[in-house]
């Protein structure tokens, strides 16, 4: 009899305790569904490829289910894709192109329980954060390699669109090159494309024709790499190691490594501790990096570059530290000062030694 009571009591206690425990843990999620939206096809290299590699890495985490939609045009189409994911009870959605910003903001308002993360933009909401990486740090390092390897002191830069992200990259590249070779000049050609191999290759050739002997690029296509390979000069890749497209020419590439960041966000969402924030990680968190440097680059240069990388990680060196002058010779960042993030995010001028316009 007593035994029975004890059992009943225990049972009651268990029953009473269970909902409380569930309450306490309601923010924690065992299994989460994550959606990715890519602007271009995944392919073998490039921007979306880099995101997809990270997606595969988090797919391997426990209790994580992912899916992706590729080649989603920016604008209304992307809104439909996100809406569809949110309706299917996705817990977390990553949109990986600038033009997805406003559509994502709209969808985020309709689905307050879903976490939205937008890459490369500047708008946030209570359930929408954004993220990007300080690629300019890696570009500075690749600029050091280019500056050390050029014989004509002319570097060619096949540039995508004149927006702060691209301009910042060109400036960092030029500063890196000038740090090892004060004579180095960077010539810029705009293609106004993100992926058009024919146009980008033609642009690279025009730079080679005016004396450039190292080609760097911002677009996703290996067109510029091909041009450098065919002319027998050097190239700097982007996004991912592009040496497969230009085995002789390719020296190094600033690369994206989204895995640590995505893992962190997934962990936060699972733990229920996610908050809307703007992330701008750099080399120190490995979100950006450089690919292995080719052995065509002398060992002392390679060491110098890796030492500089260590300095950036240790925060004893920042890329945009004054005095930095613009093309007209006007001091933009005074001696002893470093550019603030807001300044970097709105950068619309070229540093001294860059030849081209930001228009």
């Amino acid at each position, binding site marked *: 009899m007593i035994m029975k009571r004890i059992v009943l009591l225990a049972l009651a206690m268990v029953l009473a305790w269970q909902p409380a425990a569930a309450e306490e843990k309601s923010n924690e999620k065992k299994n989460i569904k994550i959606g990715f939206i890519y602007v*271009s*096809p995944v*392919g*073998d*290299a*490039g921007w979306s*490829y880099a995101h997809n590699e990270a997606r595969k890495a988090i797919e391997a985490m426990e209790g994580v289910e992912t899916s992706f939609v*590729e*080649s989603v045009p920016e604008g209304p189409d992307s809104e439909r894709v996100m809406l569809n994911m949110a309706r299917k009870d996705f817990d977390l959605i990553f949109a990986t192109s600038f033009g997805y910003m406003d559509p994502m903001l709209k969808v985020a308002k309709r689905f307050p329980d879903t976490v939205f993360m937008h890459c490369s933009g500047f708008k946030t909401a209570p359930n929408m954060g954004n993220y990007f990486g300080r690629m300019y740090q890696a570009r500075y390092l690749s600029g050091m390699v280019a500056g050390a390897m050029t014989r004509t002191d002319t570097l*060619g830069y096949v540039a995508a669109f*004149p927006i702060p992200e691209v301009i910042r990259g060109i400036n960092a590249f030029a500063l890196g090159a000038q740090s090892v070779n004060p004579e180095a000049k960077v*010539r*810029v*050609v*705009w*293609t*106004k494309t993100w*992926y*058009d*191999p*024919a*146009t980008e*290759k*033609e*642009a690279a*050739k*025009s*730079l080679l*024709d*005016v004396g*450039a002997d190292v080609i760097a690029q911002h677009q*996703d*296509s*290996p*067109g510029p790499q*091909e041009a450098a390979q*065919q002319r027998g000069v050097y190239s700097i890749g982007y996004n991912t190691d592009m040496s497969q*497209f230009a085995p002789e020419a390719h020296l190094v590439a600033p690369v994206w490594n989204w895995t640590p960041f995505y893992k962190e966000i997934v962990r936060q969402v699972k733990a229920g501790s996610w908050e809307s924030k703007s992330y701008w990680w750099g080399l120190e968190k490995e979100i950006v990096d450089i690919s292995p440097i080719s052995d065509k680059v002398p060992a002392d240069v390679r060491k110098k570059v890796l030492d500089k990388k260590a300095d950036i990680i240790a925060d004893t060196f920042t890329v945009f530290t004054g005095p930095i002058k613009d093309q007209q010779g006007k001091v933009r960042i005074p001696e002893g000062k470093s550019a603030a993030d807001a300044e970097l995010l709105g950068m619309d001028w070229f540093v001294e030694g860059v*030849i*081209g*316009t930001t*228009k």
Partner: protein
Amino acid sequence: MTWEILISLLAATVQSGTPILYATLGEIFTERSGILNLGVEGIMLVGALAGFLGAKFTGSPILGFVLGGVFGLGLAGLHGLVCIGFNGNQVVSGLALTILGTGLANYLGTPFIGQSAPGFSPMPAPILSRIPILGEIFFHHDLLIYLSYLIPPLMWLFFRYTRWGLGLRAAGEHPEAAAAAGLNIYRFRWAGVLTGGFLAGLGGAYLSLAYTHLWTSGLTAGRGWIAVALVIFAFWHPLRAVLGAYLFGGVMAFQFRLQALGADLPSSLLLMLPYGLTIIVLVLSSWRGRGDQAPAFLGINVEPSE
């Protein structure tokens, strides 16, 4: 601008003009037979994909190039079926072909974006490449460019001096008279459409096999439409097509070099140049009153006589 830059500019002109040249010549051939094919853009893109995949899976760029032409021919055959077989509207069929071709190529090509295939690389022509200046401009290219030098004169000879050439032109100029003279104008129109499609397919394959060794969706980037416009600029004459294609290619190559030299002009304006020029050239050629040199029965279907 130094001498070397000028020569490299002219050499780049030839290269960026070549894919357009193939397509323009193809469209001239088609239009001369009286069929208007506005599907060049779609045909080129399908040709580019077929050429790329052909080279990738057989390992032979030449086979890929031919395959690009064959698929172009196949797609043009669809246009022939609609226009010649069923008397369909040529404008509508051509536009549909562009939509079909670009859609098909982009859909089927998606898994291959960013991959590379074996292709043609520059190989200086023996002896000819040593001619000063001209050799550097015209004979330091790939095989497909040398091939493109042969087509315009051959086409000109064909139109002018052969019976078939005359018959093909008659099918476009005066099909009823040609039929009365006992010519099978349908056969000539078919020949015009298919040959034109073949050449446009080759032009597309040039982009994915020689210009770059890559495939991407929308690789042609409007070059097919430029080819259609250049046919009018060329007054349906194969030799003048060379001029038109190189003019367009030249401006394209020129604007990048202007940028590379540090010209202080907005890049959007420079990138617009080739297209702006195409419009100006078209206006000028119509203004000079030679736009009416089109084949008299261009775009008009011939009803089978009872």
